[in-house]
Each structure stands twice: as C-alpha cells, then as structure tokens.
C-alpha cells in the first residue's frame, strides 16, 4: 500500500538440490544453502545499483519455494495438472518417509528469510509443508526418485508515488486543513482560530459557526498552497474525536461530501494520537514518553504492545483549561491564546505564592487549584499582596512541577529516557525548560515543537490518517461518525507494529 507501482521485478532461479538418495541429502543441502546465499548477495548488489541509478527506493524482496520434488517442473503456473503432479511428489515424501527432507529444506529457507528480512521492507514465502493434502490424492503415489528444489528470488523496486493526505481538524476552537506526504513533508497547513473576547471561553455552538464559516476558504488555500489538485490526494482524514461535538461535525460533513465528489477514501483519526505522531515525525523522537497537554487533555502516554497507553492523566480538568480559565479571572486577552499571555506575564513575576499541589499517584488534579487561585486572586490583588504576574508565575510553576513529576514517574515505570511534549500547552517554554532539566538528570532528551505543530493543526490529522491508510485502514462513509469521547488507547497503532518488526530484525 505504501507504494503502488512495481517498476522492476527481477527473478532469479536459485536452484538446485538434486539427490537420489536421502542419505546424501544433508551435504547436498549444505552446498545448496551456500549457493542460495551467494545468489542472494549477488542479486542484492545488482538491485542496489539499479535502485540508485533509477532513484527508486528498495521496497521488497521475497524468497519463494518452488521446489516440488520433480526434476522437471519449475513452473509457476496454476495449471491443474502441474499442481497435481506437485502434489503427488510432495505426498511421495510424506508417505515414503521423506517428510524430514521437506522440513529440512524449509528450515534452511526460513533461516535465510530471517537473516535477510532485516534488510528489506517485506518478503513472502510459500510454504510447502503447511499445505494441506486432500486424502483422496494418496492412492498410487510413487516414491520419488530424486529431489529438486528451487528458490525464486524476487526483488521489487517501487516507484514511490508520493502518497498525499488531506487532513481536517476542528475538535476545539481551531479549524484547520493540512496536506502532507507519507514521509512527513508538510505541503500546507493553514488554520483559523476562534478568538473570544477577554474573560470569555468558547462555546460549542458559536465555535461550530466559526468553523462553518472558515472551513471551505481554508480548504481552498490548503490546496493552493500545496499546489495540488483533488486528483493528487490519496485519502481524506478528519478528527473523529475527542473534542466538542458541534465543531467536530463540521470537518466530518465536509469530508463526507468531498469523499463522494472526489471518490477518495476517508480515514477517521484520533486527535490525541495525531498529536503524538506529529510530534514524533517533526522532532525525530523514536520511542519517548509523551506528555500531551492541551486545553482539553492532560495525559502521560507511552507506547507499548501496539497501543499508546495512558500512564497518568488529569482526573478533572485539563491543564490548559485551568490556565485559560485563570486568564479569564485576570481578564487577559485570548489572542493568540490565553496560555501564551499567561506565559509572557509570568516572566515578570518573582514572588512565589504557595498553591495546592495535587498529584495522586500517576494522576493529577487541577480543578481544586483553580478554585483556590480564583478565590484568593481577587483578595490578594486588592490588598496589593502580589501582582497578576506573580500569580501567573506561581500557577505555572505549580502546575508544571506536577506534570514533570508524573512524567518522571512514567519514565521510571516503562524505562524510557526521552520525553516528547505535544499539545497546545506544549509550546510553553517554561514547561519545556523544567522538563529539559528533569530529562538531562535522567540522561535523556527532551523533544518539543513550536506553536506550528504543538497547537491543533490539519497536517497532524493528515499525517496520522496517512499512516493508517498506508496500512490499509480506511473508514467507510457510513461509519465516518464523530465522538466527544475517544480515548488514546482505543486506537491500535498498526503503523508502529511495522516499525517494531523492522527494529527487531536489526
């Protein structure tokens, strides 16, 4: 699925173990294995040269057993007669006690496959011994006189058609459309944020109206900026959840219409997973502990056994929500975002005001801190005990210390050294600084991105959808629903399974 066009297919018959007596088979097989090995090496060298000459990536390589016990047939045809003949010979082995011969042969081939699989993207093997023989074929089978095995080497070079995905994000107060390719190249990533007046938050209905108004112009500019036409697009991705219902619906509706107009498949994407994958491709972090902090989510996540597992999370409101709501208390501007304005103000603060510190095991809680600071802020400001800057500073220090603590605990649990911060709050430089200190103390590295990728965007949806699409996953139109609740660990990260396989081979 990652590539569609077979440009060069080279087949080499690497043969032959011929023996008329099972007693001499072992040395014959040894010799045969040596021949196969050198043939594979030779073929790989040729392929590497062709690959670099044509500038085509090396995609696949397979070993296929064509051995059937006959000395004549190396045919690949599905002709019934040929098949029957093959069947008889195979049965001949089995019935006349030569079954171990087949097994031995397979063991060698299996070994070769294991050895070479680390160097190639995919391979296939047709197994002899596992094929089922119908019982009526047993009658009158002669003992084989000689054995002939051959191996076919196939090498694929793929002309990689650049897979392109278009992604729609609209789970909160940003509507965004992005176009990306599978290698993570971002072709365009425009977005528009619904900014409410100071002191006010964004409500589902008004936010949906905002998205409604901006989604089509954004789509136009995303296509124009990426310089692509609908024909170039391979799949249409949208945020399935989690998020606010009404805003989520906007992306879903547009994608359903476009899918029918352009005849392109749909891929539903989990918003949280999209943040993680975007963070990984942008920073190059391979297998970090992920701290996902935004206005709607606060989770400490690590990948294990096919899923992004949540090790710790908020038990009430998200850290971004706590910051945003405190910004309303101070009547800070929501432009570009309340969190950004708190961060700027906090730089001027120097007096630390003690706030509740609420870590419960692996989890955190922010609502009590918010209530406390909301109640005391007015009082303290009135009595000139502190400045708004001091409050911002103290709130940030407290909240971020809690986040660093649970992240560190997750790192100890799953024995990982690196941390990746994603989500809107992730572009806070103070949080990054605190996390960096913790990581360096543990001998790890901090990976973080700036506001282009941290904050909700269309490219992250497109990229994550494309990862799933490349593994053959799509969402039928009738199932292209949206959902307010959609946990990170509900998604089977099939594309990561492939990475595991590759790294295990190395």
């Amino acid at each position, binding site marked *: 699925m990652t590539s569609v066009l077979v440009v060069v297919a080279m087949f080499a018959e690497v043969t032959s173990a011929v023996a008329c007596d099972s007693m001499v088979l072992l040395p014959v097989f040894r010799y045969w294995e040596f021949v196969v090995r050198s043939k594979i090496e030779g073929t790989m060298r040729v392929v590497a040269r062709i690959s670099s000459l044509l500038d085509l990536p090396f995609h696949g390589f397979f070993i296929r057993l064509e051995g059937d016990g006959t000395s004549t047939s190396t045919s690949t045809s599905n002709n019934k007669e040929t098949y029957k003949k093959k069947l008889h010979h195979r049965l001949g082995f089995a019935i006349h006690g030569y079954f171990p011969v087949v097994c031995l042969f397979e063991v060698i081939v299996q070994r070769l496959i294991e050895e070479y699989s680390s160097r190639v993207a995919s391979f296939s093997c047709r197994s002899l011994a596992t094929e089922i023989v119908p019982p009526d074929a047993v009658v009158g089978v002669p003992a084989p006189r000689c054995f002939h095995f051959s191996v076919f080497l196939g090498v694929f070079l793929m002309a990689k058609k650049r897979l392109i995905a278009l992604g729609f994000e609209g789970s909160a107060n940003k509507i965004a459309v992005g176009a990306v390719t599978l290698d993570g190249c971002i072709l365009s990533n425009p977005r528009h944020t619904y900014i409410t007046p100071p002191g006010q938050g964004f409500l589902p209905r008004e936010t949906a109206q905002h998205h*409604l108004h901006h989604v089509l112009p954004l789509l136009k500019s995303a296509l124009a900026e990426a310089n692509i036409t609908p024909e170039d697009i391979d799949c249409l991705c949208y945020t399935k959840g989690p998020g606010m219902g009404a805003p989520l619906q906007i992306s879903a509706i547009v994608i359903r219409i476009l899918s029918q107009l352009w005849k392109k498949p749909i891929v539903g994407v989990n918003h949280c997973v999209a943040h993680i994958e975007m963070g990984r491709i942008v920073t190059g972090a391979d297998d970090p502990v992920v701290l996902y902090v935004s206005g709607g989510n606060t989770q400490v996540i690590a990948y294990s056994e096919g899923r992004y597992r949540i090790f710790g999370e908020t038990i009430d409101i998200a850290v971004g929500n706590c910051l945003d709501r405190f910004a309303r208390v101070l009547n800070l501007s929501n432009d570009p975002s309340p969190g950004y304005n708190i961060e700027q103000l906090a730089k001027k603060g120097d007096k630390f005001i003690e706030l509740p510190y609420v870590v419960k095991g692996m989890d955190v809680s922010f609502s009590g801190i918010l209530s406390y600071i909301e109640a005391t802020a007015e009082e303290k400001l009135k009595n000139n005990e502190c400045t708004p800057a001091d409050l911002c500073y103290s709130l940030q220090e407290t909240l971020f210390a809690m986040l660093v603590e649970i992240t560190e605990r997750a790192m100890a649990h799953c024995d990982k050294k690196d941390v990746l911060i994603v989500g809107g709050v992730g572009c806070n430089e103070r949080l990054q600084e605190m996390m960096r200190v913790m990581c360096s103390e543990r001998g790890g590295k901090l990976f973080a991105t700036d506001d282009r990728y941290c904050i909700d965007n269309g490219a992250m949806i497109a990229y994550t959808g494309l990862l799933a699409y490349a593994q053959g996953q799509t969402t039928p139109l009738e199932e292209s629903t949206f959902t307010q609740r959609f946990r990170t660990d509900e998604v089977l990260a099939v594309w990561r399974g492939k990475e595991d396989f590759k790294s295990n081979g190395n």
Partner: protein
Amino acid sequence: MATLAADVTTGAPTKWDFRCNLEVDYASEEVAHMVYAALAVDKELQPDKVKRHMSVSNGKLYVNFEAVEARFLRASYSAFVDVLTLATKTIEEFGQGLM
C-alpha cells in the same frame, strides 16, 4: 437550493406532537443522494425526543422532523439546516459543475 415548506402543527393527540418538513430541490438525483449520504451518518442525539426521517426522490431531499416539545424541534431543525447548508456549499464550491 430552495426551501419549500416548513410547517409546524400542534394539537395532535400523539406523543410526537411537533412536526416539521423540509424539502430541498437540488434538481439532481446525484447531488441529493450525496447530501443524503453525508447527513444520514449522524443520528439524532436524543432519539426519544426528536426523530428525523430523510428520503430522496426526483432530485429532491425530503426531511421530516418529529419532536415531543417545540424547543427540541427548533434545536434539531436549526442544527440540521446549518450542516445541510455546509454540505450544499461544499458541493457548490468543489463539485465542478454538479450544481
């Protein structure tokens, strides 16, 4: 797009007292089906309070709402018209000559 009729009847003895019909003439079976398919995916959020039935014929999309209270009817109808407009606009702008 033309909205032809929206009539609200009250006073009937059944539970689903509040009804409303919407008829949109796309003058194209294909377009009407496209909009139908896109909007049919999302079910009504409170099926015990609002029912929505949709059908397509002769290039027209017919939508029928039934609700137990006027406010549910209003909310459902208004939200539906928003997404219907969005779907129609998307076809208008990206459907190259379909409409």
